[in-house]
């Protein structure tokens, strides 16, 4: 185990996989000479050279197409979006090509590609840079959708993503790139998709979340513990595949739930989660599931408005109290 930042864990995962397998390469805007917009790929160009660390023009369709086509031709590309908001430019390449080629070909083509990059809000980047599109991707069959919340998961899940034979949507959170944690150094350390992690056990209510929001749930749980409220915090880690077993087992114990994410609440992933919980554990529910999500507005620039638009641990606490009322 070594202690490192979330962003360093990502770099370690990519570095290990690139050392292991020559067919892995990374492409994207400013991933090379500039050392990565968020320094995730720092040093990788000088280590691997321009064949394997490829700076691209500002051409998201091109990037997505390059990665998808290369995957169809047998490589294992990692394409970085500078932020996920810019993936809006490439939706056709992603959704109508990467996600479907395997199905359309009757399984004759595999498309082992990882699309990764930061999502996340909180530094006043305003409306156009604050999209977190995981619900769109989770809605689209053909993708796996992964959102790690810790350095350890960042490494373990990214390695699984790179070795997965399918297109993987890998969303990091810029707000936690600097977060430190223990990370296994084993080069075969991988975390399987579809296994949620129970971050804290508790008996009164289940908080279900992913990415950055898990940390806010843990903070809320800590505060609530002092009031004698025992929260079970579940980190989904992957939205597709989704580990409902862990969720349902917890609900059968707690009978109450809060689902939480930073992205817009309306038609967000929380809605799916709540619906599935009711479908699979209706008789256990003692209170309506509370959803916590981002305000349904384009992200405002002003600090105070932005703060009001992003859900916090306090919003989770309030939701828990409503659910227990």
């Amino acid at each position, binding site marked *: 185990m070594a202690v490192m930042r979330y962003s360093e864990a990502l770099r370690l995962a990519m570095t290990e996989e690139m050392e292991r397998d020559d067919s892995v390469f990374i492409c994207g805007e400013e991933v090379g000479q500039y050392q990565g917009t968020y320094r995730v790929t720092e040093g990788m160009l000088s280590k691997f050279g321009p064949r394997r660390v490829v700076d691209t023009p500002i*051409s998201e369709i091109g990037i997505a197409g390059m990665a998808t*086509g*290369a995957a169809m031709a047998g490589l294992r590309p990692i394409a970085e979006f500078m932020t996920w908001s810019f993936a809006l430019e490439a939706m056709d390449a992603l959704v109508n090509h990467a996600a479907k080629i395997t199905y*359309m070909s009757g399984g004759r083509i595999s498309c082992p590609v990882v699309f990764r990059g930061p999502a996340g809000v909180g530094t006043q980047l305003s409306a156009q840079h604050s999209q977190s599109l995981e619900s769109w991707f989770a809605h689209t069959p053909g993708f796996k959708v992964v959102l790690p919340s810790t350095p350890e998961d960042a490494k373990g899940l990214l390695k699984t993503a790179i070795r997965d034979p*399918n297109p993987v949507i890998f969303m990091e959170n810029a707000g936690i790139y600097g977060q430190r944690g223990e990370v296994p150094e084993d080069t075969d350390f991988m975390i399987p998709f579809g296994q949620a992690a129970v971050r804290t056990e508790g008996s009164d209510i289940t908080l279900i979340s992913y990415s950055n929001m898990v940390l806010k749930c843990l903070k809320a749980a800590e505060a609530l513990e002092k009031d004698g409220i025992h929260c079970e915090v579940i980190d989904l880690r992957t939205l597709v595949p989704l580990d409902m077993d862990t969720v349902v087992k917890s609900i059968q114990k707690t009978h109450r739930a809060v689902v939480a994410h930073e992205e817009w609440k309306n038609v967000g992933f929380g809605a799916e989660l709540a619906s599935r919980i009711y479908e699979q554990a209706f008789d256990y529910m003692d209170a309506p599931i509370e959803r916590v999500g981002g305000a349904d507005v384009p992200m405002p620039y002003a600090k105070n408005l932005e703060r009001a638009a992003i859900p916090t641990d306090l919003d989770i606490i309030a939701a828990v109290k409503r659910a227990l009322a």
Partner: protein
Amino acid sequence: MAKTAVKEKSPSDIGLDTLLGHYKTMVLIRRFEESTYRKFREGKMGGYLHRYDGQEALVTALIPQLELPGDKILCTYRDHAHALLCGTSPRAIMAELMGRATGCALGKGGSMHLIDPDNGFLGGDGIVGGPVPISLGVGWALKYKNTKNVCVCYFGDGAMNQGGVHESFNMVGLYKLPVLYILENNQYAMGTSVSRSTGQPDFVKKAEAHGIAGERVDGMDFFTMWDAAKRALARIRETGEAYFLQVDCYRFVGHGVGDDNTQGWKFYRTEGEVHEWMKKDPIVKLGAYLKDAGVLPDELAEKIDQEAIAVVDDAVAFAEASPEPPLDSLYENVYS
């Protein structure tokens, strides 16, 4: 005299025998397409159906020059001929068009998504411009793996107006990738003529603007197309850099079975125009050349036609006798 003509017009490396083979292929394509139309109207197919009638030389004078499956092919939804040329069996194609389990994509893709990776054919694509970003990645992979292979990417004149095409051209130009672009300039994108869809109709300039050299080619003439393809492929294999061919041609039928049926094509082109182009039918032209050269007497022409029809009929019979995909395959192949 015939011999002289061969020398004059035909590249020296195509023997008359081989040429006869290419002629057969073109006849097969035509008969195949005609039959798909009938089968569509009989209700044996669904979705869209886009025929290649008139454009046969674009594939027949190029794909045989490739080294498949190392070289790769990508194209549009107008893809039956490409599959045939790559070596996909007519049976597997017809079965795919009828949505059968024996189709080249197990019935899941249909007319727009023929595919055959074992033969280097990475598929048709239902999205206008869609194959071009993919070609960038395929070209990248060919270079990355240090092969001498080429990716050939076909797309339509309408696709030149898709942003993704320009992004990809630029990156292919920048990275110097071994891609041959074939612009199937059949003059129309559905009902929109080239002059109604572009601010500047010289497509070669559009490629050059991104650092891809190119030229304009008459796609109604087999030899011209063959020579251009040959030069282009040699150049790409030598330099490793992309090349662009604007191939002028014409589709003799409607955009799809929709405007074939309704004669909807009359909204955007005249019968006179269609007939003018039909005079340049590449099959008729190559046939006349072979006849001149003394190797295609009428009886042989007739025989070739009958053989083509027999191949198509066999494909139809095979497809019709094939089972639908099993219902539980619905959830298969979403993931690898």
